Structure formats: C-alpha cells, structure tokens
C-alpha cells in the first residue's frame, strides 16, 4: 500500500521562513504615516481616578491625541461585558491603563506621557480569592448587576463572584458519611505569566470610509473581530482583522487584550495606522495572567482503596475583569477530579474578581490547575489506605469501567488507553509495578547514589477536552489550481504548534496527492479567510481535519461530475484515486486531477465543470450545562495520558533536579509524530517552569514585583540540558473519524506539576500542596521538618544522607 502522509514526519512548512528571519510578526509591520501609542498605567491595585491633567501632554510636539478612559466610552467583553478599553473613574489593578498618547514617534509618545498628571484616591484592594469572597470584602465591581451578561453565566451582584459553575452526581453528603476513610487537603496553583517571547501588539486604522482595519498579534482573529465590532457597534463586514505568525501564544493571545484599546485610539486619529506594541514589563502587568486557583479537596474511600465520594471547592482569583477568565471555571470544575470514577460527587468552581491583572487562558485552560490538586490528592489518598500510587490509580480509573464522568458522559476504552499510558510511564521512571522493572531501572546511571541527595519518583494522570463554545465552528476552503495543486485556506493561527504542516498533511492524505502539492497560506484575514472560532484548546488540527474531510467530500463529488461529462458516462461510474479520475471497470479511461479540477476542456475547445472551490466545516455536538446538575455535553473529545518524573532533591540546598521525565498520551493518531513529540517536550518544559521556578510575586500595593524575564524564571537551556525526556504516543483508533487524531498540544503541560510534587514527596517525605517547588521553599520545608522532629526518620530513599 502507498505510504500515507498522515503519520509521517514531514518537515514543517514554515521552517525555512523562520530560520531565515523572513517570517513577519506583528511588531515587524509598519505603514507610511503610522502613529505610535504609549500607555500610562495605574500604580495602584484599586483607586479612584480623581483627576487627569492632560493639556500639557496634548500640546507637545508630535502628539496627535491624548486620551483618558472617559474619551473611550465603550464596553469590552464577550460572556460578561465588564471591561472598558481603558479605566474610567476607577483603576482596578496595578498596571491598568488610565491614559494614552498617540504620537508620530514612540519617543514623542513617551515624552508626552511624562507630562500627564493623574490624581488617585487609593481604595482598599482585594488581591486573593479568599479575601475577595469574605463577607464585607471591598467590591471590585459595585455595578456588576448592570452589566450585559450572556445566558448561562451567573455573576452575583453585591459580591465579587463573577461566576459559579458546579457539577453534581449522586449524593456527596451520604457518600462521605459512608466512607471508611476521608482525606481532606487544601491546594493552590498561583498565578503564572505566559511569557511568550513575542510581546502583545496590535495595529489599527479607521479608513475614511468608516471601516476598521486591524493587524493583530492574536491567536483568534475572528474573536478579535467580534469583540471590537460589538464594542463599537460596527457590523462585522466593516471590520477586518488580519493575523499572522505569532511568537508564541500559550493562551495569552487567545482573547482580545490590547486590540480593543488600539482600535479605540485609532478612532481618535482617522486614516492613520496606530501601532501599540507592549514592552516586556507591560506584557506582564497589562495583558492577562494564568491560573490563580485555590482548591479544597475532600475524598471518601473504602478501606480497600476505592473512591466513593468527592467534594471539591475551587476558587479562582480571576483578576479585575472576568470575561477572559469565566470559561476556565467549567473546565477546571468538571475536570477537577481527573480520569477516575467517583459515584457521589460535587464540584464547585467560583471565579472571584480581585484587584490583579485579569486572568485569561493559559496552556491547559483550567485542567492543569485543578488536576494538580486532584493528582496530588490521589497520592495522599493512596497513602491513607496504604496503597501504591500506581495501583491505586489503576483501581479507580474511569475508562476501564465504562462508567460516567462528572458530566454524565460514558467514557470507555475507545476514548484512549490510559492504563497503557500509566504503565509505560511507570516503567520509564522506575515505578514499574514489577520488582524486576524497578531493579532494572535502579541499575541505570541516573539513580546512582550521591551524598545528601534523595531520589524520588512520582506520576500523575492527565485528561483534557477542548473548552469551547457550543457553536465553535471551524471552516476550511479547498481551492484547486490549474495544475492540480491545492490551496488549503484556513484561519487557524500558526503560533509554533505546527498546525499548518498538519493541515497540509491531512489534506494531502485525504486528496491522495503529494504534500508538496498542497499549500496552506500563512496568515488570516477575516475579509477573505473562512471562519474559525479560535486557535485555542488544542483543537485546531482535530477540528480542521474533520472540516477538510467534509470539504474534500464535496470537491470529490464535483470532480466526479465533471469527469463524468468528459467521459460521457453516468457519475456513478466515475471514481477517484491518487490524483486520477477514471471510469470504474475501465481504468484505461482516466484523467489526471489537473485536467478536471479547473473544468474539463474538450478537444473542440468547449469547457464543462469549473474551478473547484469548496468549503467544509465542523463543529462537534455540544450543549450548555444543565442548570440543576451542571452536567451536559461540555466536553466533546477527550485526550488521556500520564506523566511521571524521577527527581533528585539536594537535601542541603533544596534544589530539585529532574533526571527523567516521561509522558505517554493517547493521541488517536499522530498526524506528524516528530512535531507531536516536539510539542509534548516543549509543553513539559513549559510545565516544569510552573512546577519549579515560575510564579508571579506581588508587592505591597498589589503590583507585580517580578515583571521581567530575569525575575520571572522561565526554564533556561541550562535548566533542562540534563533531563532525559521520554515521549510515547499511543494510537487507539477513534471510531468513525476520517482522520483519527485526538487533540494534542497543551496536554504535555497538564500533569507536570503534580508529577514533580509527587516525586519530591517520594524523595523527601515532604508534601507540597502548592507550586513552585523552588529550591528555597524546599530547603525551608526540609529545615522546618528537621526542627519539628529532632530525630527524624531518614528521608525515604535518601541515598547516603548523613
């Protein structure tokens, strides 16, 4: 059989542009007469804006406009419209823009900013979810009751709660009462920053004809279009948003961030392009943050280690505006238990307004946040009933049982071989259930003993479904060219994940032509590109694959119809294979694709058929959550997997070194195995940052204290050089799917933190219930334990500790 294109590791279609520096990103664009915008930001987490003196700035050379929030009277937001392009009357987080200058150069704009005077009256601020929930807490949005809110979202006016998602099954009170063992613990996954290498940026212009044109460094040009069109009351066809390569997204560019403000400023200078590119510090304080969850977990178990009840309460410090955070809550909520079956459960996930920068999507969208807690809790529960953590997980797996997940969906083994994933990872890191496996592993060099170093192993399962709107359509256009080559036109953004390569492969595979004959144009223009909801949620390759299959179905039909005319036979007699149309049963009568796909020309010159141009779309079946139970088709495709780590903890310094990190994920079918593996390893390292070194730290006034790449510690080359990464891609077929791939992108980041924390607990006997496990925190925890127990048991598995 002919080699198929899906499943081969063809080189990335965009690699050459990227290694030569040809690839253009939003900050690389410039236009004649372009103006530059700079922002003045609030130094206070919460303050009334008493007065802004801007006349002096407006009179400075090169200045075209100076604006305050009052000059931009629009509302921004989707599900809950609670934000303005710039603060009006109240600044709700340190870093919120309060004034802007548009000038002929960046220098002129910066100089004019210096001339603006703002008088603030500081207000009491809430920086933490628990403080925001406390009775009598200062209100971040006293006018919450007046906002435009879509159905299904439940802000509570008079409080800081902007949404409360819950899901229930069985009777958790009874379940817990019946349980022989109850394990309770609180956890926290603090705020993180995406830190994509490329900062946020946007260019916008109002044309003389009243159209709004935007170049966005955004993952989802159509979402940007919707948000700004809604904000300014423009019909969609009067707004065009163009997107191109992104220098990393990770969720931070998935909603609108700087775009509404840039567009609002462009309205003040009609006809001119206005460019707003944030600097690094501004990307930290003035875009969106990630995570920010606390959770209380209470599980009931039988003495023999079966989970019987789970009571989970999650709180998110969602920041000053909620519309980019609100949909994370259901994902964190219904995934908050991990891939295990629990008959009686209740999960609550509440989002709180806080006087911090807004939270937005962050690689994994709620899943890593709550699964950190769930997977740590699984280790605690295993310990409580004296079971091995691997055996305990295997005993409670959801998929094996064919039982229902919290949403009420039946999950069986066709959803992925999670058991296989767990076993592979356990084997890799030396948690194999068989003694021979462990001995074999320990004989390897990485586990060799060193003084005062403890080695430990831990694993955690992961599961993820795309969190998306119920009508989150994707569309694709197949445009056949005169020579039989094909344009596959799609609005999904290429931000490093390799989706354009995967799309080319899927199209080539389905159309049965070499991948070299397929071209996926880079860049989206909402005027010309077919609709795609958002490039988020690891959904693009999966959704596009199905849309391409639908489009090809139509194209094939058209090609056969044209060929039938050419052959003078009924359509039913025409078939297509590998770039050739032929008469069934008489393959000597055949026409190559290129003779048919732009119409067929008879010897006398007359033409039939026409250039084939077809669209296909896809959306999975999804529903809203049921009001009473929180159940429903909120998850439309699952990807399951397991991740595990072997770590070394230096007992003198607290430093955690990852020796080996293994990931096994059931991807259905790997479209491009090398790209998929690279994506997993990249996500693991991204996750290691959040597990070991990264956290947003806050100053006394609620300002971010570490808003630089030196102080916010993302993994460096030195940090990861010694890690032995293992990646297994399992391929359990997806029934009835034309491509067979499952979602894969964020997954490598989902279970990293719990795997590391479980391994550190295994190594040292010290439990961490939050991240990051930075050396100083581990050191202090080791010290604290030593102080508490003067003659402690030697840490488990400590090798040569004196």
């Amino acid at each position, binding site marked *: 059989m002919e080699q198929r294109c899906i499943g081969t*590791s063809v*080189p*990335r279609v*965009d*690699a*050459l*542009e*990227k*290694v*030569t*520096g*040809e*690839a*253009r*990103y939003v*900050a*690389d664009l410039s236009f004649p007469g372009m103006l530059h915008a700079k922002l003045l930001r609030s130094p206070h987490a919460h303050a009334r804006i008493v007065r802004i003196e801007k006349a002096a700035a407006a009179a400075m050379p090169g200045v075209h406009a100076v604006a305050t929030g009052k000059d931009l009277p629009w509302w921004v937001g989707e599900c809950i419209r609670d934000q303005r392009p710039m603060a009006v009357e109240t600044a709700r987080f340190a870093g919120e823009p309060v004034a802007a200058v548009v000038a002929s150069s960046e220098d002129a704009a910066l100089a004019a900013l210096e001339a603006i005077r703002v008088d603030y009256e500081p207000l009491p601020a809430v920086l933490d979810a628990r403080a925001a929930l406390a009775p009598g807490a200062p209100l971040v949005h006293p006018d919450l009751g007046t906002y435009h809110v879509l159905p299904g979202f439940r802000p509570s006016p008079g409080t800081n709660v902007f949404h409360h998602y819950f899901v229930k099954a069985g009777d958790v009170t009874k379940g817990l009462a019946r349980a022989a063992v109850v394990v309770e613990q609180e956890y926290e996954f603090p705020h993180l920053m*995406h*830190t*994509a*290498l*490329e*900062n946020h940026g946007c260019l916008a212009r109002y044309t003389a004809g009243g159209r709004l044109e935007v170049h966005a460094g955004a993952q989802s040009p159509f979402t940007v279009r919707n948000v700004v069109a809604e904000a300014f009351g423009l019909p969609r066809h009067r707004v065009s948003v163009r997107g191109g*390569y*992104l*220098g*990393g*997204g*990770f969720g931070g560019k998935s909603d609108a961030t700087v775009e509404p403000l840039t567009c609002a400023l462009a309205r003040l200078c009609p006809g001119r392009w206005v460019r707003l590119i944030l*600097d*690094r510090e501004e990307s930290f304080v003035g875009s969106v943050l990630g995570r920010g969850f606390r959770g209380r977990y209470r599980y009931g178990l039988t003495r023999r280690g079966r989970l019987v009840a789970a009571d989970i309460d999650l709180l998110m410090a969602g920041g000053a505006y909620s519309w980019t955070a609100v949909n994370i809550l259901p994902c964190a909520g219904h995934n908050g238990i991990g891939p295990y079956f629990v008959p009686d459960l209740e999960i609550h996930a509440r989002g709180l307004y806080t006087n911090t920068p807004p939270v937005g999507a962050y690689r994994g969208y709620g899943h890593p946040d709550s699964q950190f807690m769930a997977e740590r809790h699984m280790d605690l529960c295993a310990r409580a009933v004296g079971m091995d953590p691997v055996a305990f997980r295997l005993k409670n797996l959801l998929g094996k049982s064919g039982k229902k997940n919290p949403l009420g969906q039946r999950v069986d083994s066709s959803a992925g071989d999670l058991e296989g994933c767990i076993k592979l990872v356990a084997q890799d890191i030396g948690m194999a259930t068989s003694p021979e496996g462990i001995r074999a592993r320990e004989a390897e060099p990485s586990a060799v003993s060193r003084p005062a170093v403890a080695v430990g192993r831990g694993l955690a399962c992961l599961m993820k479904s795309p969190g998306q709107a119920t009508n989150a359509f994707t569309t694709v256009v197949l445009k056949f060219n005169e020579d039989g080559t094909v344009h596959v036109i799609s609005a999904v953004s290429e*931000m*490093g*994940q*390799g989706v354009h390569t995967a799309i080319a492969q899927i199209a080539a595979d389905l159309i049965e032509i070499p991948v070299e004959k397929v071209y996926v144009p880079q860049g989206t223009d909402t005027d010309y590109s077919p609709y795609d909801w958002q490039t988020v949620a690891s959904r693009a390759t999966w959704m596009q694959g199905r849309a391409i299959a639908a489009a090809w179905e139509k194209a094939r039909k058209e090609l056969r119809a044209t060929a039938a005319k050419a052959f003078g036979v009924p359509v039913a007699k025409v078939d297509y294979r590998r770039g050739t149309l032929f008469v069934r049963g008489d393959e000597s009568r055949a026409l190559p694709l290129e003779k048919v796909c732009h119409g067929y020309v008879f010897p006398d010159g007359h033409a039939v058929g026409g250039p084939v141009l077809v669209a296909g779309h896809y959306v999975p079946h999804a529903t809203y959550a049921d009001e009473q139970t929180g159940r429903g088709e909120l998850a439309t495709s699952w990807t399951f997997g397991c991740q595990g780590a072997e770590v070394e903890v230096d007992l003198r310094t607290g430093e955690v070194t990852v020796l080996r990190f293994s990931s096994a994920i059931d991807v259905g079918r790997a479209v491009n195995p*090398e*790209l998929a593996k*690279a*994506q997993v*390893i*990249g*996500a*693991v*390292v*991204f996750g290691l940052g959040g597990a070991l070194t990264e956290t947003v730290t806050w100053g006394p006034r609620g300002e971010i204290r570490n808003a*630089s*790449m*030196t102080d916010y510690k*993302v*993994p*460096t*080359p*030195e940090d*990861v*050089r010694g890690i032995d*990464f293992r990646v297994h891609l399992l391929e359990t077929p997806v029934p009835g799917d034309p491509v067979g791939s499952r979602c894969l992108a964020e997954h490598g980041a989902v279970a990293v933190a719990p795997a590391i924390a479980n391994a550190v607990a295994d190594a040292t006997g010290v439990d961490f219930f939050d991240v990051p496990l930075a050396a100083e925190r581990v050191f202090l925890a080791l010290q604290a334990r030593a102080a508490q127990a003067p003659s402690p048991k030697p840490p488990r598995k400590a090798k040569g500790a004196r």
Partner: protein
Amino acid sequence: MSRHLVTLTVNGAPVTREVEAHRTLLEVLRDGLDLIGAKEGCGAGECGACTVLLDGMPVRACLVLAVEADGCAVATIEGLAAARGPDPIQQAFIDAGATQCGYCIPGFVLAARALLDRRPDPTDDDIVRACGGHLCRCTGYHTLFEAVRLAARRRAAG
C-alpha cells in the same frame, strides 16, 4: 539630543547613518535598515531574541548603542542565507525540527554560527553555554541543542 554619524558594515555592505546617541543597534537595524530578523523580546538583555554578530561575536543588539558599533561589521540573520537557500546552520535547524513559533530562532542560529566559527567541534557544554542567556518558550531546547550538534557534524563531514 546629540546626533552622530555611524558607519557599519551590515551583512557585508557599508552603511552610514546619522543616529541619536541613545539609539540602540537593534533600533537602527529594525527601524532604520528594515532588518527585522532580530527580534525584541525584552529590550533588556534577558532573552537573546535580538542577538546579532558584531565582528563575529554574538551581542544583544538591544544593549548595544549604535554609536558603540561604529566601524564594526554586523551580521544579522538576513545575511546568513545565500541567494540559493539557507546556509548549513539554518538547514540544520530545519532538519532537526528546531523551530516552533520561530521568534527566538534568529538569535539561536546566530549564536550557533558564532560558536561553530570559534569551535568547529563543540562539546555539549560548549553548546549549552552558547545557548545560555537565550530563552525559548516553545521547544524545551533539546531540538535546538540537536540542531547545533547536527550543524557541527555536517561541517566536520565537509
């Protein structure tokens, strides 16, 4: 604001520009010469995205004042590829699957170029050191290390 005449040899061609004293080399390359291959990730010497070669040595163009570079030879990513295609180091980055979003890549390619010019047969320590101070948020670095190793092997093989 004092202005100064600065003469550079950029990718082999002489260029003279009048610049203000506070302009960085990165600003002059990107805004003045339209060489946008060098990226700004931090503007503060923390990420390596703006790396160019100054007389063959990798520097952070966001930290170098244009006047400091007066009289120097500057190599940017645009100068590496020949008319017929990518140079061997760029090809190694393609073949090793080292690019994802691509924003950090010009910096890594130039760092690799400087390393291999100095040490044709680098150890892993050399490679990690040469990548030190360069951040990549996408790849997890291992494919980047592999790209440099591959480039070195290919150079050695001629």
